[in-house]
């Protein structure tokens, strides 16, 4: 039984650590991956180097959509590699477990750090080839069990690998980002805010627009926006970096939430151009869902057909086909149809006005517009719009109170505490140092206006 101890330990460690520390990282690999039983997919794969490991990796990554499968597949892969290497090394009369364990731990690291499953599947296939080659050598007599020292060395190697996977800053950052993106795709805004805290956003600026999107969905932009490390308009709308994959992911979901489904489709489609296969499961799922929302069932059906060629989207496709069959009996929702217009502008305000002009005006669009004006330092325009959105008796969010005081306005509804703090801010402006202003006013609109604006 002792000879099964090392592989059992390895499987257990890889499974548990991946489940605890990398579940969402592997889910992101599924989002960015693709496997379709189509000639087009296979022709594409065979036009790249190492097609077999690529296809195997793509096939396996489909299962990463379900939380327990990814850790199980990773654990099975490294354990299989260990067994193959141990078998091969035994033919070379190397009887220790620690050497194959060292290589298996290395493979685990490779899988943990890789962006796609392909390096891992290639390494396992390589181990299988070595094992097959080793069969040419004569088999050793008996099946020796590892000694206590050997097992201790294996345990030490596993502990080291587990620590790296759990604690490496780059892997932590990837997991938090992947988890946040997962929550965004689910529309779980509380979870987004729990993950993308101001401190976490300070460490990873790609989280900022996702956190602000969650604030928008919770109706808290005006209350909490400047508690996040926002230093420029682009942190809010990503318009200057709208060709980066992270920005396109954000913009797709942003316009989906605002009801601009055509713009969401445009951004998801642009996102596909940055992905390995020219598209991905995430993009295909979003295109299907957004075309359905637009009432364009012809194109939604096209993406149903494509997704039905993958292994694990049967239920997903049936769900949309059922919705479409039910939806054909009713008139499409007019604003959703109108939002089929393209938004050609790179100016976020222009895009928001266009959405409003086709009947998609909503509290979220109003808040986004007000916040964009704050970020641009357009206090006059902010005040004018504020007066049309907020009426006497409405509670005024904190940052709006700060901006109104800065603009020289003092409508009813500004709290005495904010007014008092503004008086102190004005006094500190005259006599305080930059450090003092930062210490006292970081997290207010005043500090943003003072420190980051070019106005």
């Amino acid at each position, binding site marked *: 039984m002792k000879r099964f101890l090392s592989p059992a330990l390895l499987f257990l460690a890889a499974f548990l650590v991946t489940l605890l520390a990398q579940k969402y990282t592997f889910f992101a690999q599924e989002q960015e991956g693709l496997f379709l039983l*189509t*000639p*087009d997919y296979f022709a*594409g794969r065979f036009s790249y180097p190492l097609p077999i490991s690529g296809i195997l990796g793509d096939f396996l990554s489909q299962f990463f959509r379900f939380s327990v499968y990814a850790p199980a597949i990773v654990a099975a892969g490294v354990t299989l590699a260990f067994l193959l290497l141990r078998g091969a090394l035994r033919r070379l009369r190397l009887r220790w477990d620690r050497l194959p364990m060292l290589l298996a731990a290395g493979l685990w690291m490779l899988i943990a750090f890789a962006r796609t499953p392909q390096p891992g599947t290639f390494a396992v296939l390589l181990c299988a080839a070595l094992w097959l080659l080793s069969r040419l050598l004569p088999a050793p007599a008996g099946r020796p069990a590892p000694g206590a020292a050997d097992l201790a060395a294996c345990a030490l190697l596993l502990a080291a690998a587990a620590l790296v996977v759990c604690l490496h800053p780059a892997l932590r950052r990837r997991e938090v980002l992947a988890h946040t993106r997962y929550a965004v795709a689910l529309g779980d805004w509380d979870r987004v805010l729990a993950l993308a805290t101001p401190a976490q956003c300070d460490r990873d600026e790609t989280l900022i627009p996702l956190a602000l999107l969650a604030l928008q969905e919770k109706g808290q932009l005006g209350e909490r926006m400047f508690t996040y490390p926002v230093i420029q308009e682009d942190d809010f709308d990503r318009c200057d970096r709208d060709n980066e994959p992270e920005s396109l992911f954000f913009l797709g979901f942003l316009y989906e939430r605002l009801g601009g489904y055509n713009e969401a489709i445009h951004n998801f489609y642009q996102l596909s151009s940055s992905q390995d296969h*020219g*598209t991905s499961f995430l993009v295909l799922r979003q295109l299907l869902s957004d075309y359905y929302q637009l009432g364009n069932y012809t*194109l939604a059906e096209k993406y149903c*057909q*494509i997704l039905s060629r993958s292994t694990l989207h049967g239920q997903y496709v049936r769900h949309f086909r059922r919705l479409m069959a039910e939806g054909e009996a009713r008139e499409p929702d007019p604003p959703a149809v109108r939002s089929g217009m393209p938004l050609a502008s790179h100016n976020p305000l222009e895009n928001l006005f266009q959405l409003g002009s086709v009947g998609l005006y909503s509290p979220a669009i109003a808040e986004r517009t007000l916040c964009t004006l704050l970020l641009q330092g357009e206090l006059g325009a902010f005040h004018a719009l504020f007066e049309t959105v907020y009426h006497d008796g409405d509670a005024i969010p904190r940052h709006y109170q700060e901006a109104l005081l800065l603009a020289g306005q003092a409508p009813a509804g500004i709290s005495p505490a904010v007014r008092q703090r503004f008086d102190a801010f004005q006094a500190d402006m005259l006599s305080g140092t930059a450090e003092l202003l930062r210490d006292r006013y970081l997290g207010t609109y005043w500090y943003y206006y003072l420190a980051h604006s070019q106005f």
Partner: protein
Amino acid sequence: MLFTGSAYGTFPIWHREADLYLMDLETGAVRAADELNSDEADSYHSWSSNGCWVLYSSRRIDGRHTRLYLARFDGEGHFSKPFLLPQKDPSHNVLRLKSYNVPEFVQGDPGRLSKEVSKHFAR
């Protein structure tokens, strides 16, 4: 002469409003080639060497992926109704997630990989 017109800028294949236009080189008269055009981008094109056929790219199926269309030209300024380039498996036009952007008619063997295609056209 056939050319692509769009509202502004370059790369008309990215412009939804891009359409094909026909110019009579003797008179300079220009007309939209309405027989060929659709609501989506209609763009890159190529004439056959005898001037009887035009091959062009259009995004009319889904607005995203370019597919190839063929139309016959009667020499009098009129095109026939265009048809989608036939595929061995028609679902190819749905399942293929890449575009055919720059179609060209060629004379002779288009290459070892395209032998099957050329066999169909030789018939």
